[in-house]
């Protein structure tokens, strides 16, 4: 029973990591940059939805849509202003602007919305399903998050592999110059990538805060790093990989706490990560692409 409870907690936590990791890996896969501001876009999304629901009394569904709209615009603006001018230089430089952007968003949020935590109202309520005479309970938000994860993963995979824009994205990720020669507008493609990634961030923010309802300007930071870890764990750039990586990470974290030690759980998570990467150097689903000599 304990095992099952742990597994369910792990799945719920993991699904939150997974949903963030999906956006992360999407942007990484296409723009080839580690967008360290992703976690902070999540935070903004959660705030927008929070204000929509609690201050303006908007229905949660519209709250989410509004959050997605705001984040989409924000994501595209960030890309245009801060990342686009650096497209020709090594991605490490963009990493640094992304970090600057992350500082910026956190501090702007603090000035706008004060550093005081707010309690997020779950968009699907706090109900849970009780099994085995209430010995085991699964919260609805966990189920919704997992379901959302699967849907998003499926839609994203399909989109990238089958649509024209999806193919343009893959082409841009490999060689922007050659993609242009195919008639692909690199600017548009990357903007769309960021738009999708940021809209996903908004969804992730809402689900994250529905499951773990504290909302602060720094709310996105740690989940952002965890999601980055999850994305790498699953094989960065791989959409199903991000999902699997996120869920694995959640489960390992909970099992580490439950069966090893709550004090050492962080070390356990990261040690497992290192071991997995030693065995599979490109993550769980990452393709080992050998350079032809």
């Amino acid at each position, binding site marked *: 029973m304990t095992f099952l409870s742990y597994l369910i907690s792990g799945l719920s936590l993991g699904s939150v990591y997974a949903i963030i990791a999906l956006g992360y890996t999407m942007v*990484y896969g296409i723009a080839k940059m*580690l967008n*360290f501001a992703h976690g902070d876009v999540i935070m903004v999304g959660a705030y927008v939805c929070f204000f929509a629901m609690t201050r303006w009394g908007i229905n949660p569904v519209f709250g989410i849509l509004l959050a997605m709209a705001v984040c989409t615009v924000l994501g595209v603006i960030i890309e245009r202003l*801060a990342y686009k*001018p*650096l497209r020709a*230089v*090594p991605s*490490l*430089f963009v*990493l*640094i*602007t992304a*970090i*600057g*952007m992350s*500082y*910026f968003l*956190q*501090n*702007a949020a603090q*000035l706008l919305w004060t550093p005081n935590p707010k309690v997020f109202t779950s968009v699907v309520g706090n109900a849970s399903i009780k099994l085995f005479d209430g010995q085991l309970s699964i919260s609805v938000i966990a189920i919704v998050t997992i379901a959302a994860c699967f849907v998003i993963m499926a839609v994203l995979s399909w989109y990238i592999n089958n649509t024209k824009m999806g193919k343009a994205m893959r082409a841009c990720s490999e060689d922007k110059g050659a993609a242009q020669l195919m008639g692909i507008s690199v600017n548009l493609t990357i903007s769309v990538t960021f738009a999708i990634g940021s809209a996903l961030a908004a969804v992730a923010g809402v689900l994250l805060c529905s499951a773990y309802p504290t909302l602060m300007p720094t709310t996105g930071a740690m989940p952002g*790093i965890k999601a*980055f*870890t999850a994305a*790498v*764990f699953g094989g*960065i750039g791989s959409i199903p990989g991000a999902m699997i990586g996120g869920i694995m990470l959640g489960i390992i974290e909970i099992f580490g706490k439950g069966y090893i*030690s709550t*004090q*050492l759980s*962080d*070390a356990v998570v*990261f*040690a497992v*990560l*290192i071991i997995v*990467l*030693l065995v599979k*150097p*490109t*993550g769980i689903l*990452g393709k080992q692409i050998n*350079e032809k*000599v």
Partner: protein
Amino acid sequence: MKKNNIFLIYGTVIAAYIIIQLLMSAGAVTSSLRGQLVPICAYIVMAVSLNLTVGVLGELSLGHAGFMSIGAFTGVVACMSLESALPPTLPRFVISLLVGAAFAGVAGFLIGIPVLRLNGDYLAIVTLAFGEIIKNIINCLYVGIDSRGLHLSFLTNSDALNLEEGGTVIINGPMGIAGITKLSTFTFGFALVLVALFIVLNLIRSRAGRAIMALRDNRIAAESIGINVTKYKLMAFVTSSALAGAAGTLFALNYSTITAAKFNFNTSILVLVFVVLGGLGNIWGSIIATTVLVILPELLREFNDYRMLVYAIVLILVMLATNNATFKNTLRELVNKIIPEKLIKRKEGTTDGNS
């Protein structure tokens, strides 16, 4: 290599030291600046050593603060344990520094083994993981000393050390180390910077350094001409982490307290920002970028609440400007216009320095 003009590097550092010493003796240095001299030195050593990994070896590391942490804690433990046995500060300081460097170097070696099998972002995540593990472990670690020697305990609390009457707890789990006697001085810090520069610059401009850079540029080609990848990756990694360890000791011995939380992901990122902003592989750039970026938040204190916001904006703008071709060209043309040909070399340096 042109961008690592050694005379410029040593010259700037030594001149800066002399000028600051003169100003200090004239009482013209504010407490604020004076208080930052040692951390600046420590961060310079951090940046220079990280540049060895990121700029010269070409591997992204997101856990450099982990090595700093190991150096800080082991160095301070050494320092505090030797307090009665070795009262004079200079040798005690040097021994602590060596202990810190040695432990961090060993950690670098251990983490270097998985590093060899991974590239790019996978390596980055392993270093990040390593930094987190170190932080977590030190938070659970208790070390004390009494007449019987050092005592160690894990996952408990300081009582489990069973210290004798009069023994002292050195590392107290999440409380870290408190009551450190400040041994670090600007002069010690300056000396460490010189040593670090000497090691890194000479390493880069030697047979081993060339091999390390070859790995960065093209691993397959390097193998094809018989360069042992494992050996040189490890060499760069261990040197880099040992120097970070020394920087950690210097840093820790400047404050009366340190905690594991100080050396978290954000600190690793901060040092990475210094390195990238200063230029990959560009040691002089690392020194300047570090100095400017450490002082900048202090200069921005006037902005009060907007301080970190302004810092973020400055960071982004500097990044955009330094990578903007038009901006660089305009700057070059401007410099060409204002300054006669033969002075350009030197003047360009100062323009960068003030940016």
